[in-house]
C-alpha cells in the first residue's frame, strides 16, 4: 500500500473539487474494495478523500412514486430498509447474496457500483493485465478463465463485474444520479457500466470529477414476482459463476412484462430486452422460459474454461423465472 494523504470532504461541492484536476485523488467511503486494491498495489492513489460525512445517507420517496437510495447508505441498511424490503424485495435479496454481513455493513451503494472486476490477473501485479496497465495484454484469455465473461468480452479484457446488487438494479432499471463540475446528470443504469472494448481500464461512464449522489428506483418494483438466483462454488461468501435477477409482472398465469439481468457473465450486468420480450403474453411454463433462456444466451461465447457457463446460465434463467412465477401474490 502506497503512502497517501487524507482529507475529509464536508460537502459535495468540496468533494468534487478535490478530485477535479487531481488524478491522484480518489473518494473513499466503505473502503471494502479500495483498501483491498491498495494493499495489492493495484490502486495507488496519492490522496484519499473521505466522503462518509456527505449528506447522501437517506432513503426517501421520489416524486414519481419511486425510491431514492442515497449513495452513502450501506448495502446492509439498504437491504434491510423497510421500504426496500416491501417494494423492491428483489434488490434486498440480491444485496444479501453478496459478500458477507460485515462487508455489507461497510460497503456503500455508490461503492458497490464502482467495485472493480475480480480477475486473478487483474489483482496480481505479477501478471500482465490490460485493465490494470493498458497495452500489457490480457493474461486471462489464454489462462484460467473459469470465472470470466461469456458475453460482451473483447480481445483486451474478459473480466466480469462482480456485484449482485447491480444485477437487481439493472433488472429494475434504476437511474444513477451523479453530480460534478458540470452539474447534475441522471445516467440510466444500462448506460452506467461499460463493456471493455478497447478501453478495459475504464469500468464506467462516471466522469473523473463526478460523484454518485443517489440511485433512484422507479416505481415498479416487481415485488409480487421476483427471484435472485446466485450459482456459486460454495454456499456463501463467494462470487457468482452465474447470477440471475428475474422480475415478472403477471396477470393470472400470463406474463405481462419480464425483466432479466445476468451477473457473472459480462463486464456489466447483462440485459437482453429482445429475449425478455419473448415472454410477453406467454404463460409461465418451463417451455416458454427455455425459449427465453436460449434467446438470451444466443451470442454467448465460451473460452477454454468457462463454456459451461452458457448452459449454466440458461438453466439458471429457467430456474429463476420459475421461482419468480411461483411466488404467491400478496393480498
Amino acid at each position: 500500500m502506497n503512502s497517501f494523504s487524507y482529507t475529509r470532504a464536508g460537502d459535495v461541492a468540496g468533494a468534487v473539487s478535490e478530485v477535479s484536476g487531481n488524478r491522484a485523488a480518489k473518494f473513499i467511503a466503505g473502503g471494502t474494495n479500495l483498501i483491498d486494491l491498495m494493499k495489492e498495489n493495484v490502486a495507488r492513489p496519492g490522496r484519499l478523500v473521505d466522503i462518509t460525512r456527505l449528506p447522501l445517507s437517506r432513503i426517501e420517496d421520489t416524486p414519481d412514486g419511486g425510491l431514492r437510495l442515497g449513495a452513502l447508505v450501506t448495502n446492509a441498511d439498504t437491504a434491510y430498509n423497510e421500504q426496500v424490503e416491501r417494494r423492491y424485495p428483489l434488490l434486498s435479496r440480491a444485496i444479501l447474496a453478496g459478500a458477507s454481513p460485515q462487508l455489507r455493513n461497510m460497503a456503500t451503494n455508490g461503492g458497490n457500483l464502482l467495485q472493480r472486476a475480480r480477475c486473478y490477473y487483474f489483482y496480481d501485479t505479477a501478471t500482465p493485465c490490460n485493465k490494470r496497465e493498458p497495452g500489457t495484454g490480457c493474461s486471462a484469455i489464454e489462462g484460467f478463465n473459469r470465472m470470466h465473461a461469456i458475453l460482451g468480452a473483447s480481445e483486451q479484457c474478459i473480466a466480469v463485474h462482480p456485484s449482485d446488487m447491480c444485477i437487481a438494479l439493472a433488472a429494475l432499471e434504476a437511474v444513477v444520479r451523479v453530480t460534478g463540475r458540470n452539474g447534475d446528470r441522471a445516467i440510466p443504469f444500462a448506460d452506467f457500466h461499460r463493456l471493455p472494448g478497447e478501453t478495459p481500464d475504464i469500468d464506467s461512464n462516471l466522469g473523473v470529477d463526478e460523484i454518485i449522489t443517489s440511485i433512484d428506483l422507479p416505481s415498479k418494483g416487481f415485488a409480487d414476482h421476483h427471484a435472485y438466483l446466485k450459482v456459486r462454488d460454495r454456499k456463501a461468501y463467494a462470487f457468482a459463476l452465474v447470477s440471475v435477477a428475474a422480475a415478472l409482472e403477471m396477470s393470472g398465469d400470463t406474463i405481462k412484462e419480464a425483466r432479466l439481468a445476468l451477473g457473472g457473465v459480462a463486464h456489466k450486468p447483462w440485459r437482453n430486452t429482445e429475449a425478455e420480450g419473448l415472454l410477453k403474453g406467454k404463460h409461465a411454463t418451463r417451455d416458454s422460459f427455455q425459449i427465453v433462456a436460449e434467446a438470451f444466451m444466443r451470442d454467448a461465447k465460451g473460452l477454454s474454461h468457462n463454456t459451461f457457463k452458457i448452459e449454466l446460465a440458461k438453466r439458471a434463467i429457467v430456474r429463476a423465472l420459475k421461482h419468480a412465477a411461483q411466488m404467491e401474490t400478496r393480498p
Partner: protein
Amino acid sequence: MTTNYIGQPLSRVDGRAKVTGQAKYAAEYNVPGLAYGVVVSSVIAKGRITKIDASKALRFGGVLQVFTHENAPHTASDDQSYKDEVAPPGSPFRPLRDDRIMFSGQPVALVVAETFELARYAASLVRVDYKSEPHETDLTAKRGQAYEPKLREYIDPPIQPRGDAGKAFARAAVQLEAEYAGPAEHHNPMELFATTVVWEGGGKLTVYDKTQGPQNNQKYICKVFELSDDDVRLLSPFVGGGFGSGLRPQYQLFLTVMAARGLQRSVRVSLTRQQMFTFTHRPQTLQRIALGAAADGRLEALMHEALAETSRFEEYSEQVVNWSGELYHCKNVKLGYKVAQLDLYSPSDMRAPGAAWGLFALESAMDELAWKLRMDPLELRLKNYAEKDLNTGKKFSSKELRECYRQGAERFGWSRRTAAPGSMREGESLIGWGMATGIWEAWQVPGSAKAVLTADGRLTVGSATADIGTGTYTIMTQIAAETLGLPIANVTFELGDSRLPASPVEGGSFTAATIGSAVKAVCEKMRKKVFDLARKMKDSPLAHTRLKEVTFADGYIRLHNDPSRGVSITEAMRHGEVGRIEEEASVVPNFAKQARYIRHSHSAVFAEVKVDEDLGTIEVSRVVSAVAAGRILNAKTARSQIMGGIVWGIGMALEEESVIDQKFGRFMNHNLAEYHVPVNADVHDIDVIFVDERDSIVNPLGVKGLGELGIVGTAAAIANAVFHAAGVRVRQLPIKADKILWSTAREREVLKPAA
C-alpha cells in the same frame, strides 16, 4: 471420585484464554523497539535475479535495511545444517541464498522498517529484474519423467507384488479400471506464518514462532545460524492451526532471525495470506486403479499406482498406495508409487498425507465396482474385509471396523437406500447416499515430560510439544490430574517451549499417544515419591502398604480396600518437609511388541448430498462417521477433531484447488476469496460415533490419535454420494457444478440395471 478425568468431555483448559483474546500467537508479542519485516516475493517461476534496486525503499529514514541475496549475512554452508527432523531427502530451501529463482513466490528480499506500514510500502518500491527460464509445473506433462523416489523416513515403499495381479485382473468376471486426480491444495490455517525474534542482548534470542515443532525449529536456527543451544529459546504457546504446514520451519523464521541478528534488534515478520501459497502444500497426485472381482464381489485383483509431484530440490513422498493392499482381502496385488519434479516449492504433509489421496481413489473405485456388480457398496466392503494385513501377514493390534460399519450404517439409515442413481429426490434436488472406509496410522514415538508438584497440591507438567487446536493442553492436563488424583484446577500443562523436555513435532496424530504416555509415566514416577512420603508419615494410615494397594483421587491417597485409610497429598508433603518434588520421564515405545502388529485407526463414513437437478450445485446435508480409535481421552475434543477432519473432507471433495496457470508457473487463486475452504453455510449435520475399541499394544494409554482420520475417505463418500444422486462419476477433485452439469434428468445417460 471426581478426579477420573480421562474420557470425560471436559471443556478446554485454554478455552478462556482463547475466547477472551488473551491467547497470544507468534505475531502478537509487542516488545519495545520492535522492527517489522515484509517479504518481497518472486514474480517468475524459474530463472535468475539480474538486478535488485532497493534505492527507492531505502530513501525513507524509517527503513532500516533491505536484505537480499547480495547482502544476506553468512549462515551455515552445508545442507545438513538446514535439514530439520521432518526434511525429506534433498537440499532444503535456503532463503536469499543466491540469484536463482526456483518457484513463483520465492522470497527475494526482506524489507525491515520501524513500522509495518512503512515496511510494506517500501517493499512495493523494491525493484527486482529477472531473467526467466522455462519452467515445468504441469504434472500431467511429466508422466514420462516419473521415477521412484528415495523415500522419506517413516514412508514405506510400495509393497512387493503378491500373486499375479495382471493375470487375475484379466481373468476376473468384473473389471473396473479408472484414473483419479487431485490438485495441489494449500493448508491455509487461519493464522498467518509469522515469527517475532526478541533481541535479548548478549547474543541471546527469544523466538516466538508459529510452529508444530518448537524444538525442531529451535535446532534449525542453532544449526543454520551457528548459535549455541543456550542462546536460543523458541516459544509457541498458541498456534492458529497447522494441519502439517508447521511441521517444518518456514522461510519467515529464517528471515526474521537473520534480520534480528543483522540489525541487532527485535524483529517481526508475518507472511501475507498471498504468501501462504508460496511454500508447503499437498502434492498434485494422479492415480490409476484396477479392480478385478468375482461375480459375488470378492476381490481377485487390485492394482494401484500413484504419481505425485515433488520439487527440484527435495524428494517428498507420501504413503498413497499401501493402504489398498491392507484394507481389503485380495491375494493378487500390485502397487506402485512414483514422483516427478516440478518447479514448485516442496510439497509436505497436509492432514492425512498420502491416505487422503489414496483412499479417495480406492474408495471411489470400490464404489464404482459395487455399482458394476449391482451390489450394495457397504456389502462389498464387508465381503472383502481383511481380518489380517496381507501386506505384512501381521494381525491388527485392534480393528473394530466392522462395528464402525454397523453402527455408522444404522445411525445413518443406510438400509433405506435405494440403489439406483437418481432414485432419491427432494424438491429440486437429487439425493445421494455414499459411504467409504477411512484408515490412518496409530503411531507412538519417543517423548519426554517433566512434572513439578508443590506442597500446596499444585502440579505442573510440561513437554516441548504443541497444541494446534488439537486439545493437547486439555488432554495432558486430564491425564496428569487423573494419574495423581488431583483436581484439574490444580494442574497445569505447559508446552510450546523448546526448553521443555524432548518432544517430536506435533504431527502424524501421534501426540496423544506419545506425550500422553510420557505424561502418564512422569506422573506415575511422581506417585511413587508421594506415596513414599505418605507411608513414612508418623502413624501413617498407609504404613506397610504397597503402591498397588492404593488409589490416587481427589487429592488423597487411599487404600482400595479401606478408603477410610488415607492421606492427602499435601499433608504427605508437609509432613515430609518437602516443598517441591520434580520428576522427569522419557518413554520409548515398546517397539518389539508393537512391531509384531499393524496399528491403525479406522472409520466408516456415510454422506448424504443434495445435487441440484438442473444447476449441478452440491450440498453435503449430513455426514455420519463411526470411528474406532482406541481409547478416547476427551469425548468433546475428540468429536471436534473428527468433525474438523470431515469439514476438510467436504472442502477436499467440493471446493479446494490451488490453480496453477502453467504459463506463469504460479498458483493464481492465492487468497481466501478464490481458494475456497468450507464456510459455515456449507456444513450441516455431522454426527460422530466412537466405537468401543480396546488396544493394549498400541501404547500404554491405548489411544490412537484423531487429528487426521476424519478426512480419510470422506471425499470418496461424498463423491460416491454424488454418483448416487446424479449418476455422474467425478474422478477429478474438486467436484463443482460444471462437472455435474451435463447430467440432468433430461441429459443423463439412462442407467440400465445389470442383465
